[in-house]
């Protein structure tokens, strides 16, 4: 997926909304900060997720971080490949490293999330 077409949360998740389905992952910046990802926990299909709440966790050698959903909705698919090979997230965070697909209420949008330029500004400030 082209990072230009994605929206971003302050907690380094990316999101894209296509026909009532929101796909979530974490950004390349987040993966580079973590390094050494050893484990990813994702919800089960059918679970409900809520904006601002944790839907899973990502563990690296150094530390564990929660994964936060930017939207309310129901999990309709998870990327099962990540459970066996969490390094996929590092290899291709915006593509093969996607995490969950969430069915959102009609009329939902991602307007509260940052655009790529806004997100890039945030990480440059965080990094220095």
């Amino acid at each position, binding site marked *: 997926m082209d990072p230009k077409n994605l929206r971003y949360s302050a907690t380094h998740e990316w999101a894209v909304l296509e026909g009532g389905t929101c796909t979530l992952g974490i950004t390349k910046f987040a993966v580079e900060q973590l390094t*050494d990802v*050893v*484990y990813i*926990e994702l919800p089960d299909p059918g679970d409900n997720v809520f904006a601002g709440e944790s839907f899973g966790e990502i563990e690296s050698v150094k530390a*564990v971080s929660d994964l936060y959903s930017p939207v309310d909705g129901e999990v309709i698919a998870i990327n099962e490949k990540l459970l066996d090979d969490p390094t996929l997230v590092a290899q291709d965070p915006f593509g093969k490293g996607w995490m969950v697909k969430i069915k959102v209420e009609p009329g939902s949008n991602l307007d509260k999330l940052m655009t790529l330029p806004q997100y890039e500004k945030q990480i440059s400030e965080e990094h220095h």
Partner: protein
Amino acid sequence: MPARTPLYDWHVAHGARMVDFAGWDMPIQYTTIIQEHQTVRNAAGLFDISHMGRLSFNGADALALIQHVYTNNAATMKDGQVRYGLVCNEQGGVRDDVLVYRWPDQWEMVVNASNRTKIVDWLARHRGSQKVEMIDRTVATCMIAVQGPQALAKCRDLTPADPAQLRYYFAMPTTYRGQPCVVSRTGYTGEDGVEYIVPADQGVAMWEELIGKGASACGLGARDTLRLEAAMPLYGHELGEDFDPLQAGLNWAVKLDKGDFIGRDAILRRKDDPKLRRRVGLELAGKRLAREGSIVLNEGKEIGRVTSGTFGPTVNKAIAMAYLEQGQTKPGTTVAVDVRGKSESARVVPLPFYQRPRQ
């Protein structure tokens, strides 16, 4: 502002992520922790350990002072020998774990960065009127560890004396670019290797020469996963003022028959106390990692706490060290670890998790 080692500028220029560790700005990693870990297990890794405290002792009573504060026996050491031991308080709690070096005319002690001031004060307090001059050489020198199966090959031509002639836990004086240098066959990774102490202004030259010979820079992140697999205790985690050395399983470094030393009586009293927890290794069944502070349970009841936990890249498992109640420490015992509110199954295993193949 945290202190900087003579290699600070090199670390920053080579993309290291720097963290404040015990008051020093140190590299945690240059690449990834797992990659640097594997380099040490399979080839040769370089560590800047200049933050460790280096103290030297001169004078007629140097041995007497060391014997008074140190749990191991320094009197039986040969010239050039290096020996691990603990410095304890009167209650038998561990104030630091240290390496003592014996030389014909003086002694040296390498202490943890986090405990350097505390140990310097402790030694000054217990010196009394004894004839001992203590010099803190930490800032004047640089300390570099070269670790891994290829470490000795990389170090062969670095100094006039080849460190391969050293036995394990022995050291010798030599020179580096004409300057005084101490090389020891020691380390904190579970691999063969050496550690150098050189004047601070020689640190970068030595480091770059080793890089030129094919050793790779490694950070404190890999140092932690390496020492954990090798089950080496880390002060502030497996060791502290609340634990005595026997609880930690360091009986081999405590010589109760050498004569009196600070903490000896307390250690003797605690020796057979059934209430004191003991250090063990845990292997987790799943991939979620136990971390420092995680509670260990058996049938819903707390039986101990995790002191360090990580993913062991060589053993390819989630591993941890913990202190558990006696009676629960037998290898094979199944326990539960509370990992952020969810119970994970774990098994007590013998330490170390990893032992290098012997030639």
